[in-house]
């Protein structure tokens, strides 16, 4: 069976004052029905751009989809007309954002905002949409939803707002739900509740979820499969278990080493030295080379490694390729 | 929508006082454009043309004047001057009523003249009036302490509005009486609406005591202070008449408008003089030779022909040249720079001096432009002149009235009879610090005082003429003032308008005969 959402060789560029910069460099990934794909990486690695590209929300200008394809259930989204895209957005593909504090419009009630999503995609009256919105608020676990629906965002806590966002996202039973760092801005206890909610939602609505996060803990809890991104490329991809157990790429290993585990609390957390290089300064070689402990070969600075399966699952590293690690 | 309409409607009402008026009948409406803002509409306690124009429509007066300086019956159908010149009997018409319906009686006339005597700034107009007897309702006898040749002229509409005693005689100060802004008179037009500083709307008085008058149904006086806006209003017919035009620009521009005609008639009694005043108390200007030198250095012809582009007429003396009292033989001080330098040297200022000159802000062509001209011209005889501009009229009036000046441009009106408008400038007992248009030059000459005082009580025209001739000779030599020109007052009016007022008082005269031709 063909995957529900399939991204192929997607290339996204941005015009900046340093010239045309490639934000996504031929990335490919897919997600199947009912599955959760985790996309991990540090900030600036292109996770969110991938999500926005999928939603057709790359700000243009300065952004531009230069190449590649995104197919939803066999329908090509790149180049689709804007009316069709609008229909899909919020309908078949929905998205939850990182910042629940700012992702809701401060001047409308939350009920109205959910109801708007409903009326945009379903042929129902405004009253009916509002009733549905209240029901959804109830569904995502907001107490006294009747009253809350008439509240403005600033009257709700962060966790509640994220629940509102989830309610809005699932209001039209999307096939794909993209959750972009849905818990980052929230307290740890609330984080767990949100993940539980997402799991429930997936169970009830059968949506595929793309969970974008930098938190490997969240991945281990939620994801079926994982794509690791770095500097605009997918550098490792595979099942969650496989990647968590046997990360290949030095960066992926670094990420996983960062997970605090109760059992290893006494050990100092490892940190990956350095930062993601600015996209406009990417050279010809591996983008991770400067931070990599194993960058001693010439190819590392002259040639971009390709994503190749070296046994466990595909990874893009010259070192792995040469089986030196 | 509704409120917009209300607002617009209300705004419209405010602007020009629409009020629900019956449709205009046959007489039609006349719009007069004016740059002069009247404080109120009662000429009995306020001098100046701004008030006089509406005041003479609203109030009738004992007499009115034709274009030949001859008195005509108005509220007084006849009048008698006693042999000794000490009493004047006015026989009033019997059918005159005020706008509120009450008849005009001799009581009202007596009250009005006494009120004017007390409150009008032109003290000399009725100063000799002692009492006014009212033997019956329609006879008033003015008793004088001395003969008063200007009396009949002072009974003109512009100077002697007859006020209803029952309105103005209620004990309030006439100068600040509320009725000054809502006057009741017996003139040809009644006040309909007065929006201070904006417009005055006058309606036909249906009970006017002169049969068949007034001809017009309505007079609107629109105050437009911006000259460009006023010209535009005249050009596109938003205004029909523009009297007291004082600049060459306006005269030449309106002269080219097809539906408008221009006249210089109607300003004889105003006698508007433009002059250079010397502060004779200033040490630099106390020497008559310096004043004469300055006079010789100024080219009066250049001013009237070039600076005023030929619209104004030269004026050589204190009495307007069109007046029968003007003396042709006085020295004219035609341009003579050598003579001027000699006089400067004689006075001990061979090395020159420096002076300041003030001017009235506003009438630029008459005042500022001449002040600037003096500056460049007087440099030729070694006088450095600093032009002291004033930001507003009160500032200028404060300086000149307070004797804080050296040279100043000034505009002063003759107001018909020299007793009213001329004496005040030269009498030594009218040196009145703080009061503008008194003898601010602080000129003192005993003979002048004698001559003027004699002329003020003589009712023999020839005798007066002789007295004024000598007076003019003296002041033209003493030169407390260098007279330059008379203002180029013109009237522009729609050519379809008939009987445009061209008498000696021009528009300061009832417009009861003005009408539209078919």
């Amino acid at each position, binding site marked *: 069976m063909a995957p529900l959402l399939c991204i192929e060789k997607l290339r996204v560029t941005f015009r900046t004052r340093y010239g045309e910069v490639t934000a996504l460099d031929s990335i490919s990934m897919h997600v199947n029905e009912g599955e959760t794909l985790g996309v991990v990486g540090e900030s600036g690695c292109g996770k969110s751009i991938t999500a926005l590209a999928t939603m057709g929300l790359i700000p243009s200008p300065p952004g531009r989809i230069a190449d590649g394809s995104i197919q939803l259930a066999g329908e090509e989204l790149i180049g689709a007309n804007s009316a069709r895209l609008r229909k899909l957005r919020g309908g078949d593909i929905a998205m939850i954002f990182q910042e629940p504090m700012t992702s809701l419009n401060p001047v409308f009630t939350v009920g109205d905002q959910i109801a708007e999503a409903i009326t945009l995609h379903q042929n129902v009256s405004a009253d009916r949409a509002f009733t549905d919105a209240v029901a959804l608020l109830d569904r995502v676990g907001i107490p006294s939803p009747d009253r809350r629906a008439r509240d403005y965002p600033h009257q709700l806590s962060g966790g509640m707002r994220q629940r509102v966002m989830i309610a809005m996202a699932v209001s039209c039973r999307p096939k794909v739900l993209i959750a972009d760092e849905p818990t980052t801005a929230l307290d740890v206890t609330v984080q767990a509740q949100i993940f539980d909610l997402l799991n429930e939602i997936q169970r009830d609505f059968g949506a595929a979820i793309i969970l974008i996060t930098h938190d490997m803990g969240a991945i281990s809890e939620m994801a079926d499969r994982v794509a690791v991104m770095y500097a605009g490329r997918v550098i490792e991809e595979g099942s969650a278990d496989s990647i968590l157990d046997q990360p290949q790429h030095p960066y992926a290993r670094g990420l996983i080493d960062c997970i605090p585990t109760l059992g290893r609390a006494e050990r100092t957390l490892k940190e990956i030295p350095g930062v993601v290089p600015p996209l406009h*300064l990417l050279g010809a070689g591996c983008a991770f080379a400067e931070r990599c402990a194993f960058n001693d070969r010439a190819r590392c600075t002259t040639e971009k490694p390709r994503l190749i399966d070296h046994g466990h699952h595909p990874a893009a590293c010259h070192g792995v390729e040469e089986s030196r690690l | 929508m509704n409120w917009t309409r209300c607002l617009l409607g209300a705004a419209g009402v405010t602007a020009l006082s629409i009020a629900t008026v019956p449709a205009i009948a046959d007489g039609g409406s006349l719009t007069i454009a004016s740059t002069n803002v009247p404080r109120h509409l009662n000429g009995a306690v306020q001098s100046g043309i701004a008030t006089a124009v509406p005041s003479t429509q609203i109030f009738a007066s004992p007499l009115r004047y034709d274009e030949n300086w001859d008195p005509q019956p108005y509220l007084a159908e006849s009048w008698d001057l006693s042999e000794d010149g000490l009493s004047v009997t006015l026989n009033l018409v019997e059918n005159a009523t005020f706008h509120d319906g009450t008849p005009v009686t001799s009581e009202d006339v007596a009250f009005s003249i006494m009120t004017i005597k007390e409150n009008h700034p032109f003290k000399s107009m009725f100063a000799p009036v002692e009492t006014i007897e009212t033997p019956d309702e329609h006879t008033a006898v003015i008793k004088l302490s001395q003969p008063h040749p200007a009396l009949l002229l002072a009974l003109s509409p512009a100077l002697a509005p007859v006020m209803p005693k029952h309105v103005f005689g209620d004990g309030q100060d006439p100068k600040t009486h509320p009725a000054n802004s809502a006057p009741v008179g017996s003139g040809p037009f009644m006040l309909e609406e007065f929006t201070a500083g904006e417009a005055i709307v006058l309606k036909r008085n249906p009970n006017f005591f002169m049969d068949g008058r007034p001809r017009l149904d309505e007079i609107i006086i629109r105050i437009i202070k*911006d*000259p*460009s806006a006023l010209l535009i209003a005249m050009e596109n017919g938003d205004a029909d008449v523009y009297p007291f035009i004082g600049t060459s*620009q306006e005269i030449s521009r309106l002269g080219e408008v097809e539906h408008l005609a221009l006249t210089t008639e109607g300003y004889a009694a105003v006698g508007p003089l433009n002059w250079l005043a010397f502060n004779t108390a200033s040490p630099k200007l106390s020497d008559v030779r310096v004043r004469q030198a300055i006079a010789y250095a100024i080219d009066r012809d250049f001013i009237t022909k070039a600076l005023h582009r030929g619209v104004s007429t030269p004026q050589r003396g204190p009495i307007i040249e069109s007046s029968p009292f003007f003396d042709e033989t006085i020295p004219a001080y035609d341009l003579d720079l050598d003579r001027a330098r000699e006089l400067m040297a004689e006075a001990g200022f061979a090395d020159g001096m420096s002076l300041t000159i003030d001017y009235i802000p506003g009438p630029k062509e008459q005042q500022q*432009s001449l002040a*600037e*001209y003096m500056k460049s011209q007087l440099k030729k005889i070694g006088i450095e002149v600093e032009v002291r*501009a004033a930001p*507003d009229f009160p500032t200028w009036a404060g300086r000149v009235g307070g004797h804080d000046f050296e040279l100043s441009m000034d505009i002063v009106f003759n107001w018909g009879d020299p007793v009213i408008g001329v004496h005040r400038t030269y009498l030594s007992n009218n040196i009145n610090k703080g009061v503008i248009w008194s003898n601010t030059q602080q000129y003192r000459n005993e003979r002048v005082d004698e001559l003027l005082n004699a002329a003020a009580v003589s009712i023999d025209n020839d005798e007066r003429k002789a007295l004024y001739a000598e007076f003019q000779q003296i002041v033209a030599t003493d030169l407390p003032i260098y007279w330059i020109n008379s203002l180029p007052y013109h009237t522009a009016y729609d050519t379809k308008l008939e009987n445009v007022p061209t008498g000696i008082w021009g528009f300061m005269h009832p417009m009861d005969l003005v009408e539209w031709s078919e």
Partner: protein
Amino acid sequence: MSERALNKAESPALEAWRIFRRNVPALIGVVILTVIVLATLYGSFIYTGDAFEIVWAPHEPPGVTPDFPLGTDYLGRSVVAGMLTGGGPTLAVGAAAAAITMVIGVTLGALAGFHGGWVDNLLMRITEFFQVLPALLFAMVLVTLFSPSLLTIAIAIGVVSWPQTARLTRAEFLKVKELEYVTAARAIGARDARIIWKVILPNAAPPLIVSATLTIGVAILFEAGLSFLGLGDPNVMSWGLMIGANRDYILDAWWPVTFPGLAIFLTVFAVSLIGDGLNDAFNPKMRER
């Protein structure tokens, strides 16, 4: 270029200058303003005469007589002479008024922002009070009462314009005073005055500099407005005075009004281009706006 920019740590001022000098509109502003300032400074060498002096027939159109390329006004005074000598007072009043505005505004704003509490409360009430008075009307009253001269005009403009500066300064102070180095300065026992002037003010300076620049523009417009109404110093030639004096004759002569108006416009235009440029330079992130 870009690498150097990234690698070499620059002082904020230098960084700002680097951005500023690449800002074309701002540079245009600098050029225009320089030309105008030079013209008003050295114009008197070209036209040595008094701009009030009558030198020719009134209302000579521009371009007819070589000596009076911009024509003459209603008195026959040279418009070029007025343009050259009228710029000085206009600019001087603008700059002085802006200075007064900044002194009052920054002082009060700094005190309010720094001290907070009742001082802040009181000063802000005063500020609001002054904002309630329509500025031009209030300035007109002040100028009339104390008789118009360049000094009284500059003071009047300053007195009516400071509230905005005070608010801005206060806001900046509130922002900056919470920063670590201020706390550090307090910790080492620096006196309040020192903290205000030596620590907070330099860090709050960029928006204030921008505001000062724009204030000059506003002050110039203000002076022009007052002069136009005849409330400028009547004995000093200024662009506003030229417009006000020649307004009566616009139907016959457009030039004595048009040229000084253009000069005022260009000056304020240049100043605001520079102000915008400075704003962009100090806030690189805001460049897109």
